[in-house]
């Protein structure tokens, strides 16, 4: 049953993304920036997906500390890994855009720097997990780290914001935005596609995590014999 749901969701994600690619290709070029502007349809939703992943990881980590149920730990690691992949996609698409528009691959602007620091923080989460052998300790320590990392994200953002800024002002959810309404629809629909993709990826990763735990317990049982 779970397999079938996964296949359906996966197929749906592919369909939505394929349709959006077609729609995005058909949109007119932006007046000042040309075709490269269209990268925003992947750049921004990837960041939003990563944020959703970070919030989910926080919730799962808190739940694990409360209940000590390993399914929350598995969910936390699965969603963090997928979120990290989406944040990487966000950084890479941003970098490609910057090369064309700003003429440089990277600049130490507030959003770029804070996104990179977040990436490093959550990469640290995965490294910490790899370094701890004992499952209960790994799950507990990782959960504590995840909570501290999440607390740090807004402070990182605001501290770097006071430090400097170069990133174009966000055109969504702000009063100075000038993003056409039908383009917003395309963007939101692409976010839906990426979110579906993220859910499918998380579910696959979650299953790997469960198999891993089963293998570990079988191995322990074999050792005990």
């Amino acid at each position, binding site marked *: 049953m779970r397999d079938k749901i996964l296949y359906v969701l996966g197929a749906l994600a592919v369909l939505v993304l394929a349709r959006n690619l077609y729609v995005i290709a058909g949109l007119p070029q932006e007046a000042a920036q040309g075709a490269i502007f269209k990268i925003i349809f992947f750049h921004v939703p990837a960041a939003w997906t990563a944020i959703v992943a970070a919030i989910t990881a926080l919730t799962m980590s808190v739940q694990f500390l409360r209940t000590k149920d390993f399914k929350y730990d598995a969910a936390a690691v699965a969603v963090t890994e997928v979120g990290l992949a989406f944040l990487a996609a966000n950084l890479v698409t941003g970098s490609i855009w910057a090369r064309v528009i700003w003429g440089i691959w990277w600049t130490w602007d507030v959003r770029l720097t804070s996104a990179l620091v977040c990436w490093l923080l959550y990469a*640290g989460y995965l490294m*910490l997990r790899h370094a*701890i052998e004992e499952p209960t300790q790994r799950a507990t320590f990782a959960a*504590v780290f995840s909570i501290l*990392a999440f*607390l740090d994200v807004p402070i990182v953002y605001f*501290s770097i914001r006071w430090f400097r800024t170069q990133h174009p002002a966000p055109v969504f959810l702000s009063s100075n935005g000038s993003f056409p309404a039908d383009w917003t629809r395309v963007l939101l629909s692409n976010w839906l596609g990426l979110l579906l993709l993220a859910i499918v990826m998380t579910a696959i990763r979650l299953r790997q995590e469960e198999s891993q735990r089963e293998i570990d317990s079988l191995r322990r049982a074999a050792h005990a014999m």
Partner: protein
Amino acid sequence: MSFARLVLVVMAKDLRAELRTKEALNASLAFAVVILVLLSFVIESDDVPQKALGNLLWLVFAFAGTLVLNRSFAREVPNDCLDALVAAPISGAALFLGKALASFLLVLAMELVALPVFGIFYNVRWAQQFWPLMLVTVLGTWGVTVIGTVFSALTVNIRLREVMLPMLTYPMLLPALLGAMELTGDLVTGTPIGPDTVTWLKLLVGFDVLFTAASVTLIEFILVG
């Protein structure tokens, strides 16, 4: 015993253990001087603004401070002292705060030696704003120590402890280091804390309060599970 007294007992124990061997303190001091010397090859004092030198000082503090923080919980591993401490009738919060205070005093001692050395090597008249500088040093060092002590507890049992601690600590510390750098850069050049820089002071205080509270709340999970 009251909570404050328990904290002081743990702190006194850690300080006594450290001052008998001086292993972490000596290593950290020597390392601070080594970095100060190495930095002199990167920057020629004449053409680098003095403000930037003040910023570099915090890199020295953070790098050298890690050597002290690495030892904070690692010291308790031989002879299973950590198990004894956890089994002792004191709360995790008291244990954590005692250890953090001891590390704080040791890191501060290293910094107070490194500061004049820095002044001599780079011809900086660093004491012009002495008391504000001390305030910033204390606040910045507490931020470094709180995060460092939590992560010292997180990494105590794991492989590659010495590698993991800096990898986890520095991205998390970024806001505190940024604030301390900005303020110290101004203060060592004789510029007092003004209306534009007081934000950084607030950031430092906020960072310290938030992460002290979070650490005290979460430490029980790390120590006991």
